[in-house]
């Protein structure tokens, strides 16, 4: 059966359908085919019929009543039927067994369950992330039919899904998924391919390192960066990493340096330090910061010393000085968190010649020195810090923290208060006031914290919780232990309200009256201040009724009703308000809005309930 001829006829008829059946009249190509059909028609009737059909189309018997459309339809129908019996089933090309990479998955999910996940992974819209995560947790991805979609998910437009696929779904298939990932991996791709590479590394073990190396050599920029990062832990690729630090592209160099920092070999460290002499100093510095090599630290310290010398030399030359300063800041970045005796010496020198270094290099250097010395446990370092804090209140915090750690409570007090008592009294001196404020704030940082705590939304939906802030004061026993008792007097003297609250003691009447006054003076509800005050009043052992009355007064104040929500201790106080305050509370509720109002309403409702219960009990 001459199938090729039939296919050719089919193509011609298709052409005529597009052009219009009338144009078949006298069509040159059909005319040319006709004799072959007629010839074959002598032996096969079907070709005869087809030939007759073609003839009727190109040379209709009845020119006037041209039924070209019907002729074409008839011929097409006949041809279609014939062609459908002539379909070839043979393969083209040589055959070999199918290369399979088994993944050991079965098929157990029903259509409806699968369709839901498929839709989540192939369309865009809301809620898809939840569907995917839930499906994974239910073990649905163990079904063979979701594997391809899981791989595809690496490229999902919603990055959280893509990350989830990369970190959870694909690794769950184990090493078996790796060949399939490698199959579709395109080194010239972008983020999707980077993600793929990460999964390949995670699931693939040692065998895939060669592939990753290839990707690092010749992939797209994004892929190369990821690949280099993945090679970081492998010393065998060191020479490649070294050469990549000289790559044209910056991102490649960054990745290479960071990888070398992890490898930490002599050659790696040398290369990193070498870069400090050139344009890549910034990159090298960030990489060096991650490198724990002592050899490197020593080189860096030496380098820092040299640059500091230069900085002093170039004092007059603005350009050179600036260049030096930049270099120094990079060295400092690289030395972040590192400690060595040589470095100590350098910083000690810097602190000793404060004004010189401030003017030639700048604050960054001094800050680094202060920071270093703060963490040094020696009296010598402490003394240097005390010198430093005199130069600039900026270093008060470093010095104070170091002092707090190393000095006894009484010595600490004497240094910061006693010895300069009169100075603090100079209320008009701006410098002094600034210092005072700073000291107080540093102390506050040590003793007051503002963590979040979860509270059930009793006022609206009790099953749900919200995170609200709750002030935390250093426990009174700890205060007594770590701080000299004389602080309290002085704090009252300088009107440091928050700290008085922390340091308050039941026996100290001045702080009691001081705090009561502060509470009375409160013009509006500043939430954190009120919380601290409440705690302070407690510590000072102020009478509970008085405390509550003070609190109510503040809450009733005109501007307090702007508050959005009650948090922490304030909220807890509200829960414990005795129901004698119920009427005042009722009046107050009207003025508040937002969640604060809901909370007050809840408190009032609870009071009402308790009242009813009490009533019942009483009447029994």
């Amino acid at each position, binding site marked *: 059966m001459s*199938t090729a001829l*039939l*296919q050719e006829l*089919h193509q011609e*008829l*298709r052409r005529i*359908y*597009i*052009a*219009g*059946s*009338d*144009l078949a009249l006298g069509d040159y190509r059909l005319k040319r085919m006709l004799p072959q059909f007629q010839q074959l028609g002598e032996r096969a009737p079907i070709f005869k019929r087809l030939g007759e059909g073609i003839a009727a189309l190109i040379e209709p018997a009845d020119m006037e009543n041209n039924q*070209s*459309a*019907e002729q*074409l*339809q*008839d011929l*097409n*129908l006949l041809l*279609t*039927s*014939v*062609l*459908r*019996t*002539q*379909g*070839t*089933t*043979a*393969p*083209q*090309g*040589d*055959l*070999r*067994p*199918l*290369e*399979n*990479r*088994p993944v*050991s*998955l*079965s*098929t*157990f*999910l*029903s*259509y*409806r369950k*699968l*369709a839901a996940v498929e839709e989540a992974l192939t369309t865009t819209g809301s809620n898809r992330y939840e569907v995917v995560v839930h499906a994974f947790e239910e073990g649905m991805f163990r079904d*063979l*039919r979701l*594997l*391809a979609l899981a791989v595809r998910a690496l490229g999902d437009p919603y990055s959280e899904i893509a990350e989830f696929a990369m970190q959870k779904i694909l690794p769950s298939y184990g090493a078996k998924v790796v060949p*399939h990932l490698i199959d579709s991996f395109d080194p010239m791709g972008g983020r999707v391919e980077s993600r793929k590479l990460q999964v390949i590394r995670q699931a693939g073990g040692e065998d895939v390192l060669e592939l990753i190396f290839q990707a690092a050599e010749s992939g797209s920029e994004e892929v190369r960066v990821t690949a280099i990062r993945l090679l970081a832990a492998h010393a065998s690729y060191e020479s490649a990493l070294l050469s990549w630090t000289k790559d044209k592209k910056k991102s490649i160099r960054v990745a290479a340096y960071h990888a070398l920092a992890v490898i930490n070999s002599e050659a790696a460290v040398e290369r990193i330090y070498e870069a400090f002499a050139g344009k890549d100093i910034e990159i090298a510095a960030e990489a060096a910061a991650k490198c724990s090599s002592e050899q490197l630290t020593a080189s860096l310290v030496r380098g820092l010393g040299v640059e500091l010398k230069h900085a002093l030399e170039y004092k007059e030359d603005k350009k050179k000085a600036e260049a030096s300063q930049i270099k120094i800041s990079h060295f400092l970045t690289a030395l972040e968190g590192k400690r060595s005796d040589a470095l100590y010496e350098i910083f000690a020198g810097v602190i000793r010649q404060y004004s010189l270094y401030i003017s030639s290099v700048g604050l960054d250097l001094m800050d680094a020195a202060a920071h270093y010395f703060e963490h040094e446990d020696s009296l010598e370092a402490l003394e240097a810090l005390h010198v430093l804090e005199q130069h600039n209140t900026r270093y008060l915090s470093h010095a104070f923290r170091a002092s707090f750690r190393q000095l006894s409570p009484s010595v600490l007090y004497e240094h910061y208060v006693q010895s300069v008592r009169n100075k603090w009294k100079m209320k008009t001196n701006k410098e002094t006031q600034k210092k005072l404020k700073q000291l107080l704030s540093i102390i506050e940082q040590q003793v007051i914290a503002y963590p979040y705590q979860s509270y059930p939304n009793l006022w609206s939906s009790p099953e749900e919780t919200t995170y609200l802030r709750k002030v935390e004061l250093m426990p009174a026993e700890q205060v007594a232990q770590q701080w000299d008792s004389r602080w309290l007097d002085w704090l009252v003297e300088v009107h440091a309200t928050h700290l008085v609250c922390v340091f308050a003691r039941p026996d100290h009447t001045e702080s009691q009256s001081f705090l009561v006054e502060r509470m009375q003076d409160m013009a509006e509800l500043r939430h954190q201040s009120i919380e601290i005050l409440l705690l302070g009043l407690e510590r000072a052992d102020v009478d509970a009724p008085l405390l509550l009355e003070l609190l109510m007064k503040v809450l009733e104040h005109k501007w307090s009703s702007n508050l959005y929500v009650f948090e922490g201790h304030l909220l807890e106080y509200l829960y414990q308000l005795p129901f004698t305050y119920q009427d005042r509370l009722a009046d107050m509720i009207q003025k508040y809005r937002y969640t604060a109002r809901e909370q007050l309403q809840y408190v009032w409702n609870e009071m009402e309930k308790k009242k009813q219960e009490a009533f019942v009990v009483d009447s029994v």
Partner: protein
Amino acid sequence: MIEITSSFVDSLASNTTAIKNAQGLVKKRSFVQLHQSEDGTLLFAECKGSGSSNYQCSADFIQPDKPILRCSCPSRQLPCKHALGILYAYIGGETFTTTAVPDDIAAKREKAEKREEKKLQQTSEGAEPKPKKVNKTALKKKVQSQLEGLDVLEKLLQSLVRNGLGTIDKKVIKTMQEHVKQMGNYYLTGAQTELRRLTLLLSEADDREQVYTDVVEQLAVMHAFIKKGRAYLTSKLADPTLALDHESTIEEWLGHAWQLTDLKEYGLMKEQVELVQLAFVSYDDSARQEYVDEGYWLERDSGEIHRTILYRPYKAAKLMREEDSLFDAVRVPSLYQYPGDMNRRVRFEEMVVRPLDSHEVVDISKYAQRSYTDVIKKVKNQLKNPLSHANPLVLLHVAEVLQSNQDEVVIADETGQHLVLRDQVSDGHRTLPMLTQLSASQLEDVSMLVRFEHDMDTGRLTAMPLTILKDADMLRLLY
């Protein structure tokens, strides 16, 4: 005590939203009162709804495996979330107070009982259901109208063909769409669907060049349908009984929906048939304006492969229960077969489900056809008729799975006959890539359910793998 499980209740629901809503009602404590009758066969309750008064709903377990769910809410969904909710509440261990059966439900029960009695009476007396009186004049009128419709359709097609497909613009498409509507007036719903199919092919294509071959093929199908339909309808007019043709598919092409009683009359009903589902698929047929749920089943006694088809019209889709893959073995008391050739459509009202035993799966493989030459011959014989189902399904024995250096996947039978596998992209599913993810044992000496397709552009007959059976394992590549 009524024994029900949550998966049983799930199965009564039409879709997953109904399940969620019903469970939500229980959580929100919308059920004001929950009762059960003294004999425990009736659960009834009052439920808070969006209306002013509460809804009265109930679940009647007179027949323990087929509860009747009733509710006074205005929702058209059957069963509604309130009635389902009662069942979830019951499973969840909520308290049901025992009370007497309310009057209205008692009345309904009586009515239902009477109906059942009547039915039993009729079958026990062997009474024939009253023969439907066929209104011959009306039917004649209908047939004449259908003939007229075919003429109208033919005229339209011929004008398209004469002017050429290349001239089809928005105006022409509009005319075609109007004709689609008209076909309904001529009682030709089948023609309506096929014309709509043609219109969609042309109107939805981004690049017409890609679809012309399919358009030409569709024109051939429609031409065949018009010719055969005309011949058949003309002979029907001449026939005094105006009988239905139960041997060819022409009735369905014309739009006739077979009644099960008719099929039984023509002897197209089998009893106590055991079936196993080999594959399932659901898709959107925009030409029919319906969602279609198709199941491919193996008849265990004969090895024949049947298709179940559930059509869910877009407008009614929310109210109808979606079908799903079934992994159990099924016994059907009455299996009705539609006219057709290979893979005939079947339908059944009731079925008894039981877990599929592994030896039963092993057993299936005895029906796998071992000679591709014979199968291909049979398939081509069916494809020869443009009005036959264009994608026959066959269970083949596969000796091994190969690949060519042209990246084709090929299966071979024991004699070395080859058949190229290819995905049929029309429904968007691709099963071929999964083959490389199987183990070697799943790729040799297995049974494979495939679906054939002839591509007019390339002249090739290929098959798409749907399910693989090896020993006791069934691997559903599709659904």
